[in-house]
């Protein structure tokens, strides 16, 4: 079918509704994925379809064997950086979780997950044919995952099914409150029971130091577009050598007529995975990522400063563990909700006020509570955001201490 020209016009000159060059973007899932300068350059060079495959070795035609650009070296460096033995780049963190679940379990098995796990952890388990056993989460305001309960949940699975769960999964930093869980506790429990430990590092690896060996992780999953200054879609699957045969098992299928076989291909990866812009931006940003995790404590300090400033507005409080140990933050903002009830723009007043000060990323319409992320902002930008919130509070007669 021919699409009319006027409709095709919609695809010309695609632009975002705001520019990162003129606004401060606090969107909770976007800060860690902001591209580095090198990545912006690389995307122009390698944006074309299969351009990273110019030098794909004909005898071992596999993405992880490409040496120019240095994909092969990158996979090695990526594993080392995460304190793991092997790394692969896949489409998303959820795909990495699915691959781990699918290859470690058999249908009907359980996977034990924290009660604050991302929905994609549940869906990955379902697609892999696994059932989910949840570890409880404490109440407000801290919402701590009861890490010690992993042991009782593993026992529960064993009593119910007569066998151990296929894996346990811990969300290193949860998406709701930005709490950093002590992965070592779960790593130790998983090791004692001999159950593979999958650590979901979507919000941690790439922005803060993560050492899989130190944390006792058997598998690490990560998100390039969330935390590695890379374009979407990029996921990271890193594992220990002991799981290589299981998780990265080679394809064994053979055509019944042609007898064609594909023994070099890694089955669960369906052969080659992410190429082009996502992979090349992940690689190009890697040096900056290696350097930036060393500045993590300063990033956290900036977040704490902003939280302190926001809590000067009477009635506003940070949810989750205090003080903050991650830049993803959830705040309860009842006073702004009260303002919204008498404002003609209702819940959108806060968005409007922030937008007029060139601050974006707080979900439009939310005033009762919202999330934000300050990762990568300069001190000057942090102070600008703090001053803006105080100014808005004072404008609407809220008490500021």
């Amino acid at each position: 079918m021919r699409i009319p020209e006027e409709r095709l016009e919609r695809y010309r000159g695609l632009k975002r509704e705001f520019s990162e060059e003129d606004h401060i973007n606090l969107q909770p899932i976007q800060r860690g994925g902001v591209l580095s300068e090198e990545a912006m350059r690389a995307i122009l060079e390698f944006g074309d379809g299969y351009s990273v495959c110019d030098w794909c070795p004909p005898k071992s035609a596999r993405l992880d064997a490409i040496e120019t650009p240095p994909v092969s070296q990158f996979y090695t460096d990526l594993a080392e950086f995460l304190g793991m033995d092997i790394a692969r780049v896949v489409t998303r963190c959820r795909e990495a979780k699915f691959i781990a679940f699918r290859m470690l379990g058999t249908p009907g098995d359980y996977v034990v997950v924290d009660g604050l796990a991302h929905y994609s952890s549940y869906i990955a388990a379902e697609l892999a044919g696994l059932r989910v056993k949840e570890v409880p989460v404490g109440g407000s305001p801290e919402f701590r995952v009861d890490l010690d309960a992993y042991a009782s949940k593993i026992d529960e699975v064993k009593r119910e099914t007569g066998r151990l769960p296929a894996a346990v999964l811990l969300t290193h930093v949860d998406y709701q409150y930005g709490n950093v869980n002590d992965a070592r506790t779960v790593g130790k429990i998983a090791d004692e029971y001999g159950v593979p430990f999958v650590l979901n590092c979507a919000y941690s690896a790439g922005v803060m130091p993560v050492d899989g060996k130190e944390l006792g992780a058997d598998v690490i999953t990560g998100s390039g577009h969330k935390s590695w200054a890379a374009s979407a879609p990029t996921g990271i699957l890193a594992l220990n050598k002991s799981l290589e045969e299981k998780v990265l098992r080679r394809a064994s299928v053979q055509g019944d007529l042609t007898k064609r076989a594909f023994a070099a291909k890694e089955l669960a990866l369906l052969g080659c995975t992410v190429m082009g812009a996502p992979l090349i931006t992940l690689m190009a940003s890697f040096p900056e990522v290696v350097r930036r995790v060393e500045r993590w404590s300063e990033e956290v300090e900036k977040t704490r400063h902003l939280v302190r400033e926001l809590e000067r507005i009477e009635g506003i409080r940070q949810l989750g563990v205090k003080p903050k140990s991650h830049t993803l933050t959830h705040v309860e903002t009842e006073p702004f909700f009260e303002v919204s009830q008498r404002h003609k723009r209702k819940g959108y007043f806060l968005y409007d006020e922030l937008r007029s000060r060139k601050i974006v990323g707080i979900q439009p319409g939310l005033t009762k509570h919202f999330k934000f992320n300050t990762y990568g902002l300069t001190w000057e930008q942090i102070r600008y955001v703090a001053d803006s919130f105080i100014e808005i509070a004072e404008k609407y007669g809220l008490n500021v201490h």
Partner: protein
Amino acid sequence: MDLSDCIDGIIGEMIALKQTLRKTAPEHRLSEDDLKRFRESVNKAEEMLKSIKKELGEGST
């Protein structure tokens, strides 16, 4: 420099400037270092634009 090198060079300089804008948004209070970098990038880009014009047989006006 050939045409494609000049074009890549100009884009590279502009990308560097975009990064500076991102770090200073929304007020763009540029430090001495930022200003220096801006001037250097603009000058380099200007030189490359001149090369392109020359390559195309046009004057530098």
